[in-house]
């Protein structure tokens, strides 16, 4: 890098020596590769720098995986146990006791679909929201684009989601081949889009929260049970249609949840139960993009000085 610079300098045209050039100021100003100061352009998101550190993102993902399951006997099997037990619990409580119904679909497949995509969102969000506090030690000692950390969190969770999805696919295939209760359809093609949307939504929201939890730890507490409550406001354990029975005066509040369309469409594609509208999914995508933009701006602003307040 140094070499290329030096040759670059040598090949510049010799400057005529005038009073102006002797001061070197106009020339020197342009050569700085970086200026460290208190304020920076809000819209300078530093994405190019993140791209340069892409290897780091992948190494963080790898670290998360390797370190989580070292010295455990079951290893990655733990990925399957958690959603499976959750889905079984939901079967007992919501289908067995509360009788919420699953639209004629086998309840295990119904709940496992919801739990799988929900976990992806919830875990990405909670981990991203506390990214500054959990990484304070490393952030305080060395600089690298801070955005790499939330990105790696979401990617780690994406890998985890892929593993959990394979569990769901086994269950799904079983019901598909042995019963006539589930009807996969064209919306299945939307699943990759849904997964990306879900990840970006968690990333955007998480980054907004991360900026706040840095200073006010109360929010971290609020978030852990807030996410639990949010699950009940999202059609994870019931179908979106159930919301129609709510009084219309506050139904719009529940319907404003951008997660609704994502979860509902995910289940619709695999199981053939639920409703779909392009407008509603488009709304989710719009909200996701807005939150992502706000999150990135806020995150970049906070990362410059959070070490003083964390």
């Amino acid at each position, binding site marked *: 890098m140094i070499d290329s610079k030096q040759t670059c300098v040598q090949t510049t045209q010799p400057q005529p020596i005038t009073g102006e050039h002797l001061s070197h100021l106009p020339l020197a100003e342009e050569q700085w590769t970086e200026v*460290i100061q208190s304020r920076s352009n809000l819209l300078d998101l530093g994405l190019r720098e993140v791209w340069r550190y892409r290897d780091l993102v992948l190494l963080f993902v790898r670290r998360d995986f390797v370190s989580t399951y070292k010295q455990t006997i079951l290893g990655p099997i733990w990925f399957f146990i958690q959603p499976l037990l959750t889905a079984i619990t939901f079967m007992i409580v919501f289908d067995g006791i509360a009788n919420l119904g699953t639209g004629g679909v086998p309840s295990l497949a119904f709940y496992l679909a919801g739990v799988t995509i929900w976990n992806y969102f919830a875990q990405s969000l909670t981990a991203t929201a506390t990214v500054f506090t959990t990484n304070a030690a490393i952030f305080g000692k060395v600089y690298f684009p801070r955005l790499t950390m939330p990105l790696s969190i979401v990617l780690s969770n994406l890998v985890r989601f892929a593993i959990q999805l394979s569990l769901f696919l086994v269950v799904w295939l079983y019901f598909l081949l042995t019963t006539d209760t589930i009807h996969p359809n064209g919306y299945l093609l939307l699943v990759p889009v849904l997964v990306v949307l879900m990840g970006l939504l968690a990333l955007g929201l998480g980054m907004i929260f991360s900026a706040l939890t840095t200073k006010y730890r109360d929010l971290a507490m609020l978030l852990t049970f807030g996410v639990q409550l949010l699950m009940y406001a999202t059609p994870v354990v019931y179908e979106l249609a159930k919301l129609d029975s709510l009084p219309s005066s506050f139904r719009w509040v529940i319907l404003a949840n951008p997660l609704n369309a994502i979860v509902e469409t995910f289940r619709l594609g695999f199981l053939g139960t639920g409703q779909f509208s392009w407008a509603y999914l488009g709304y989710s995508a719009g909200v996701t993009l807005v939150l992502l933009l706000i999150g990135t701006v806020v995150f970049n602003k906070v990362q410059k000085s959070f070490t003083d307040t964390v």
Partner: protein
Amino acid sequence: MSNIAIRVENLGKLYRLGEIGTGTLSHDLNRAWARLRGKEDPFAKIGETNDRATKGSSDYVWSLKDVSFDVKQGEVLGIIGRNGAGKSTLLKILSKVTAPTTGRIKVKGRIASLLEVGTGFHPELTGRENIFLNGAILGMTKAEIRSKFDEIVDFSGVERYIDTPVKRYSSGMYVRLAFAVAAFLEPEILIVDEVLAVGDAEFQKKCLGRMKHVSVNDGRTVLFVSHNMEALNRLCDRSVLLAQGRVEKIADTDTIIGSYVQKNFGSRGTMSWSDDNDSPGNDIIRLLSVSIINEGHDIVERIDIKRKIGISFTYKVLKPGQRFTHGVNIYNHHGVHLISSHDVEQANKQIAVATGVYTTTVWIPGDLLAEGLLTVGVAIMKYEPFEVWLHEENAVSFTVIDPITGDSARGYYTGSFPGVVRPLLQWDAVVEE
């Protein structure tokens, strides 16, 4: 092309003292309101200079204020200062860990900082995995690390354990591996905080050598912060002395170390304690005073290199029938321990001493110590079993000067004259043919 690699301009950093989380919301709202009206930060004004010893009235403190200096390309610049002088804050801003409150730093080239070695090392990962992770954190790409992997492992000297999780490493091995990764970074600017405090002597030497190599051979700029005066002197051509968040002096390292030592340990020819309870010692013996004297028994701070120097200390013996001896330590301004001496005669005689006030003087011959500031520590101790009753480090200090009259070891040579001691030696020159 100007050859400035880093230009620091009016840099300032304001910190809020005390506990964060009490009253911060109201402060934040206040600030936001002021900013909205385009006014200055209302809390920035009441900041005080940084002096941890005095109690301030404000909750805000300028950890750095109006700091400006340039670093030339290829230079190794040292940064010296007491604890709390603002060294770490400066390094944190330079390494972009935190942002300055005022001012700016202009940089030419990529910066890599080593505020700590092994940042991001994960205990569960193997040495190999950690080399990649740590290298990437420090800004290397996978391909760069791979191409240097063998060199890194070789430099660290832990190849046998490279596939073992680092949690099984000894702390020395851990540091070796961590420093090795950092040593093979290729930034234009390298920022190093006292990371050399760990590791064995041989490895420290290797690290210092590597840093020198990086600046001399590769033309990289290095900023080095350390309390190790010897290392600073060996590595850095120029240094910055920080005090209370401001730049006190920028000059060649030798001068800076001299004024740092002078300022903090003072050149004082005599030191005395009036209060028995405050003075160094125990219930048997109390130190009353320590002085540097010349042949005429006058207290002095500056002494001619050819004259003998007396270190004289007065103490009060409170209990009768005690057996003890004395010792002195002499350090030069780089912190090198030049001389340690015990009063062997008194130790061997094992004479029981009656109560009273005594003065002991030890004489250092002329033409022995090199020029410069020397600090003296005194001690009184007992043998069998060995027990230190009092030990006053940095008790007094004095400056050895050479008026260059031609009869000292430097003759009439007036330039810089190295060597920690300066004895007048015998030179024999004979005609062989």
